[in-house]
């Protein structure tokens, strides 16, 4: 179980914190969605959880009791993996780009087990047809899949996705979301994810966290989504209807 407690973050020269006392809880295999406007601090929150940016001293990010923020970077990488918004790969081939995710296990030279893990991942995610091609030659959807495979090679318990469907077409978008859902379910990995498309978020997530002005204003399951919440967080008028037990948002006129 993931427990984030009292996480605050402030940039060096600024008096005002960007994040103030964030608390988040996620069960194993649960998908949590972080929602909020641009600049509300979603990426900053992710980076603080990952230890890329340093959170306030009294913050804790616990996974099954262990405090991830007090771990070495290497040990942390075996527990949390990150798929950032703008993915880069350098110029390696697909196989090596995924193998890279295992560096915290092998250090200098990949062993047989590492190669086997990657081979299995490539088979699971059906990447065989371009396994030895350079990642730079691939399409956006394929690259996204490889980024996910690289994150999975870390054998994490928690996966953090920053806008995973940002520049994908609808087919790839669905593919990535379904893949992520399957992973959370099959491998019992918790997922924390930010999404801009609210309808997508409603169908993807188990838990929702609404971020505004550095606070989590609302959180809860699907039941906590309603027109007032969306209006307050995003400053727009919307209508939410339910079709086949699925909440769908319509419209969006600025207040």
């Amino acid at each position: 179980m993931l427990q984030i407690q009292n996480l605050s973050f402030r940039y060096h020269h600024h008096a005002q914190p960007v994040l103030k006392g964030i608390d988040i809880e996620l069960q194993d295999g649960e998908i949590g969605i972080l929602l909020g406007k641009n600049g509300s601090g979603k990426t900053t929150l992710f980076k603080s959880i990952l230890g890329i940016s340093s959170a306030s001293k009294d913050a804790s990010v616990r996974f099954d009791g262990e405090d991830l923020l007090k771990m070495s970077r290497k040990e942390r990488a075996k527990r949390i993996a990150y798929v950032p918004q703008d993915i880069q790969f350098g110029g390696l081939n697909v196989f090596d780009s995924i193998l890279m995710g295992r560096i915290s296990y092998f250090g200098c030279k990949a062993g047989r087990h590492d190669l086997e893990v990657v081979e299995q991942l490539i088979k699971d995610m059906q990447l065989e047809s371009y396994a030895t091609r350079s990642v730079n030659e691939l399409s956006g959807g394929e690259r996204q899949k490889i980024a996910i495979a690289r994150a999975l090679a870390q054998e994490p318990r928690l996966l953090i996705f920053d806008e995973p469907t940002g520049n994908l077409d609808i087919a790839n978008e669905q593919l990535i979301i379904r893949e992520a859902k399957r992973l959370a379910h099959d491998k019992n990995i918790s997922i924390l994810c930010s999404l801009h498309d609210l309808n997508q978020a409603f169908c993807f997530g188990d838990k929702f966290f609404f971020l505004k002005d550095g606070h989590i204003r609302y959180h809860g399951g699907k039941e906590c989504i309603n027109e007032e919440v969306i209006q307050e967080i995003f400053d727009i008028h919307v209508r939410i209807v339910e079709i086949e037990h699925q909440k769908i948002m319509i419209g969006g006129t600025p207040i």
Partner: protein
Amino acid sequence: MELLESYRREHKRKRIIVILLFSAMVLMSIVCLFVGSSHMSVSDCTAALMRKGVPTNIRIIWNIRIPRVLAAIIAGAGLSLSGLIMQTTLNNIMASPSTLGVSNAAVFGANLSIIVFAGGFLSTGNNLSNYMIGVNPYAAGMVAFVFSTTSILLILGLCKTRSFTPNVVVLAGVALGSVWTAATTILQFYATDVGLSAAVIWSFGDLGRATYRTDAIMFVAVGLGYLFFMLMSWKYNVLLTGEPTAKSIGIHVDRLRFLSLLLASVITAVCVSFLGIIGFVGIICPHVTKKLLGQDHRHTIHASAICGSLLLLLADTLSRSMGNGSALPVGAITSLLGAPFFIALIFSKEERR
């Protein structure tokens, strides 16, 4: 299993290219050994190599050509490696061994030694007659080394305490480099004609200054760097994916940057201090290698080193056969030779990142 097979095949292919490059380098060093201004025949050279035949020839081979060839191999490898690591760690394709202003500092140090203390004046060892009688052949090199190390520590210390983002490091390096250059200009303004010409001649890269001792010192620096870079090759690959990803995968990005820049700069400092400025090897060779083998540092580190040796051997062989008795400055030849090739390479195919 099929997948792993094809993956391994791919790497084997690249290893073969590296081995071919290495063979070319060995071949070139033999050629380099046999070519020179003293018009020795192949059989003279072979005899001298086995310490037989005319004593002068033996001296030429063992005291001049072998240290020179070794210097070309070691310094070429060092400068090229240093360039590759600079480019990777600073995430900048224009980075070179002297991005941190190391060469400028070395030039200032040597100028100071030559112009103010008249040290190392006779050490420009192109010609055999004053080969042995240099006042102190190491003086200029030593002072150059002291200054370039100071420069490295200054800049890395500053960046470490302030900001360690690649662009800041590059800009700070350029700025500090220009300070050294300005100081050099002022020194040269007050120099005597003799001092000035000696200082200028020092800054021409010249492999003829190499002795077994300088080779050994360079070998230690380059060897240690090589070993470190080799062990870190996976980490450099990860660094190419950008800082956030690299950190989330478990790399201490700042620590890796610091150590890499330090080692790369020390290699440059040692080579430049002993041999003078040898430009462009550190930019051309890593790029040629990347075109040939891609970005994987498990291959490019070896290949860059070999490519650097190869280019410097080639340049040195040409400089000695073109100079009509005395060798042309090898630093100029590497650029003359490399730059057009490099330009052709850049425009041959747009590089994608």
